[in-house]
């Protein structure tokens, strides 16, 4: 079976190319390993757990975000690095923005607490706390592609994970941190939810954060802005909607 891989190496004169490889393995990660070991040792990608939990092997297959270790490939598939993020080499992207974003939101328990919570409370945050920081949602997000200050899907999902945690003392702080370049800039297009390998639904989480924000007295800053200027044009619509 043949697959195509988009290459990038800043140390070469010909930085970009699309190379074709013959592989026998149908699991994408195994196929990549096979190529590296027996065809082209310069092929570069990340991997770790081989079972879909470390989030390091996310790539694009025919334009869609996938975890290599959980993906079956077909003839002529095109493998590319994730989008919207600097590429270091071949399929390896720079993921250092994760720390920056999580810190910006302050998504963590603010004051350690042993407040008693029940199974229902746990289930409320169970799905969100399954995020593996694979960056697939970031790669697929149209807003992040044009605005690198956007606190995108996984960081917002993680914001909700803590806002919904009864142990959090003060949810206002996290909510405050996601008002600008955050929940109101999302178009609710749902692409992030489609590509999430953990079946997390960042779009729904963002909607929920919008509702909670309303309840806590925040309002949509974009809407205010637009209210003044283009009231007639955007009435009732999310101003960023496509």
């Amino acid at each position, binding site marked *: 079976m043949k697959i195509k891989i988009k290459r990038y190496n800043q140390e070469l004169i010909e930085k970009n190319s699309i190379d074709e490889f013959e592989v026998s393995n149908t699991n994408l990660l195994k196929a990549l390993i096979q190529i590296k070991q027996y065809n082209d040792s310069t092929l570069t990608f990340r991997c770790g757990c081989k079972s879909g*939990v470390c989030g390091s092997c996310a790539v694009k297959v025919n334009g869609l975000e996938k975890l290599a270790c959980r993906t079956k490939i077909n003839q002529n598939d095109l493998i590319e690095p994730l989008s919207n993020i600097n590429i270091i080499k071949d399929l390896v992207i720079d993921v250092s923005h994760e720390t920056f974003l999580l810190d910006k939101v302050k998504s*963590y328990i603010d004051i350690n607490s042993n407040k008693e919570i029940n199974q229902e409370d746990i289930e409320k945050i169970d799905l969100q*706390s399954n995020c593996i920081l694979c960056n697939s949602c970031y790669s697929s997000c149209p807003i992040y592609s044009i605005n690198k200050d956007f606190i995108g899907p996984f960081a917002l999902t993680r914001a909700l994970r803590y806002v919904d945690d009864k142990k959090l003392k003060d949810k206002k702080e996290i909510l405050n941190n996601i008002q600008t370049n955050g929940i109101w800039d999302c178009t609710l297009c749902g692409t992030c939810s489609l590509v999430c390998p953990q079946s997390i639904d960042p779009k729904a989480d963002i909607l929920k954060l919008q509702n909670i924000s309303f309840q806590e007295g925040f309002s949509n800053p974009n809407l205010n802005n637009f209210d003044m200027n283009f009231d007639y044009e955007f009435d009732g619509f999310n101003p960023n909607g496509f």
Partner: protein
Amino acid sequence: MVDLLIIGSGGAGLCAALSAKENGCDVLVVSKTYPTHSQTVQAQGGINAVLYENDDDINLHIEDTYKASCRLSNKDNIKTLCENAKDSVLWLESIGVPFNKDENSKIKQRKFGGTNKKRTCYSSDYTGLKIIHTLFDQCIKNKIDFKNEYFLIDLIVENKKCYGAIFLDIKTGKIENIYSKSTILATGGYAGVYSNNTTNSLSNCADGTAAALRAGVKLSNIEFVQFHPTALENSNILISESARGEGAYLVDSKNKRFIDELKSRDEVTKAIYEKLINKDKVYLDLRHLDENKINKLLPQEKRIAFEYTNIDITKELLPINPAAHYSMGGIKTDKNFKTNIENLYACGEVAQSSIHGANRLGGNSLIEIITFGKKAGISASNNSKNMKSIKNIESITSFENKIENIYNLPNKINFYEKKDLLANELFEKVGIIKNENDLDDFINFIDNLNSQLPNMGILDKSKIYNKNLIDFLEFLNQIEISKIIALCSKQRKESRGSHNRLEFKNISNEYEKYSYALIEDELLKIGFEEIS
């Protein structure tokens, strides 16, 4: 120079960092992966602690752990671990780890092998994932400094004192010395050297263990490698013990159960292995379990089985085999997590902290990395507090040469091919059941491999993110440590826990000792010492 250098950002490294920082120490965590890419994410089943003493008792936890260790452990250390386990779990809960709860809002516990009590706390079957991400969030909150994707090449040790370590910055290809008053190794275990036959992460290659050995650090009980009974046939992805804990059976091709599924891992593994070498097959049978329960408590196992073998565990039998899983042995530490080298500490799976002995109980590793990770952070940071400054040793140049030499080696032999071969030889000859002939064979194989090394180079000659180079450096470490496993296995002429010798089928009192491996005056010394 930093006060405290922590190498490794799995659960052990992050806990050490958090407690050291809280102790007022300036810390730097350096690792070859990002924290959330570390192997700790893979832990599924749970973490052991006696939380409520109506039915369980800390003494029982101590007894079970000691019994599983086959007397190769230190009861005082086990006591410290078990007595602090409750605090560790409650601490994890207080920072946000969402443990499953029972109807009275108490942390729910499941039963693991080797014990009669329900003692294993869990977050569905994503326990490790939820723990590491929560710890990572706390590290961000506490402004812990990280250097990610830095590969530890060697420790800086002179006259049995550690002054830091030498790293390769994977992103730039540059060598960097990091000097520190104290250093903690938390680089994870060495079961990954069985590469194709392990449940471990592909990035788990015994690097820390090998670097320690080269620096004169004493390794202990390296022959004790735990083989997990239930990994998926072919891919060796783990199916957690929680499956059996929740009631799954092990059956052979005649659909017959052949062992109590909740015996300790060494016994279950041996029983399965005997079936397999007699050309039988072994399956995990979950069909009788309530589907709802599987969806709630074992969602990851269900997904893994379906994705990697196309099997629906609620309806079909799942073919399994044992795979190398955990390293009971490692860097010998004392009760303060100190190694035999001054200013050097170790915690987590990389350490042999006298807990697991010949066989680890499921759920006891996570509790160890949290509890001892935190304590090691305090110990090492206290050590730094008493120090004013340290001298810098210039070793950068020699290491640049070492790496430069690798770039210049001819590529007549493909080292990846040899790496595969090594893993298979290791599994067959230094695996679940070992014998003298096979061990000798393997040692010869390694010596032969070493002589071929000058003809195995790397093809990628670039500096930036050279994974080919990293793979090669890992391969060198794999060679070094797998030889130590064989040498230590050879000298232990008995069967105990995970270590089984064909010619010596029983436990022997003579070997109620720790084995050690140590390089002193450039000579490798292998021997036994009293339990401490």
